[in-house]
């Protein structure tokens, strides 16, 4: 079955540190991939998405992600985090012929210390 996994449950960083959150999916076919962020008390907000083309995609708030097909990965990165990036981050995918059903990873809680 198709699945998405995030291996980091909770990441703690200091401000200005670089961030990389891992995301892997288990499917060899066509997949559209997303990163969502949920700030405390707020709704899931789309950070970025990858459908095809340039495997390095840029999103809002300085985030980017790289799609590596050979590794079934779609890791999220940010060169320098801020305290305001404290949130939960969700990787999700829509797999081919799945009718728009988003399959989510477990989520990674990011805490940034000022």
């Amino acid at each position, binding site marked *: 079955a198709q699945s998405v996994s995030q291996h980091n449950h909770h990441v703690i960083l200091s401000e200005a540190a670089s961030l990389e959150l891992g995301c892997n999916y288990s499917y060899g076919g066509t997949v*559209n991939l*997303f990163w*969502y962020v949920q700030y405390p008390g*707020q*709704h*899931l*907000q*789309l950070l970025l*998405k990858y*459908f095809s083309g340039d495997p390095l995609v840029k999103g809002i708030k300085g985030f980017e992600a790289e799609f590596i097909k050979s590794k079934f990965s779609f890791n999220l990165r940010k060169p320098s985090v801020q305290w305001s990036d404290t949130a939960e981050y*969700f990787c*999700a995918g*829509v797999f081919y012929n*799945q*009718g*728009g*059903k*988003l*399959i*989510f*990873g*477990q*989520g990674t809680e990011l805490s940034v210390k000022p």
Partner: protein
Amino acid sequence: EPEVTQTPSHQVTQMGQEVILRCVPISNHLYFYWYRQILGQKVEFLVSFYNNEISEKSEIFDDQFSVERPDGSNFTLKIRSTKLEDSAMYFCASSRQGDTDTQYFGPGTRLTVL
């Protein structure tokens, strides 16, 4: 920027009672979804809806669940006879024609079944 809205933000009910969770999708969107997240678990797909019909549903979405678009703006999820294990955060999402996989989420309704 248009947003998906959900009401109520928190619903407390007794086991066996019926609940209706309400969502107002983004106005020009035609595809609608419900997801849920049990505390500590992944966000799970429940159902997708298009053109007044269910497009796809998960195994969670049994006969106790139903969805409806009663008018041009609302999209509802009804749980006929709630169980303790239905306690979760329920998210509504919508997407537009031509980019159905990119889903925009509401803030969620926290359902507590006592």
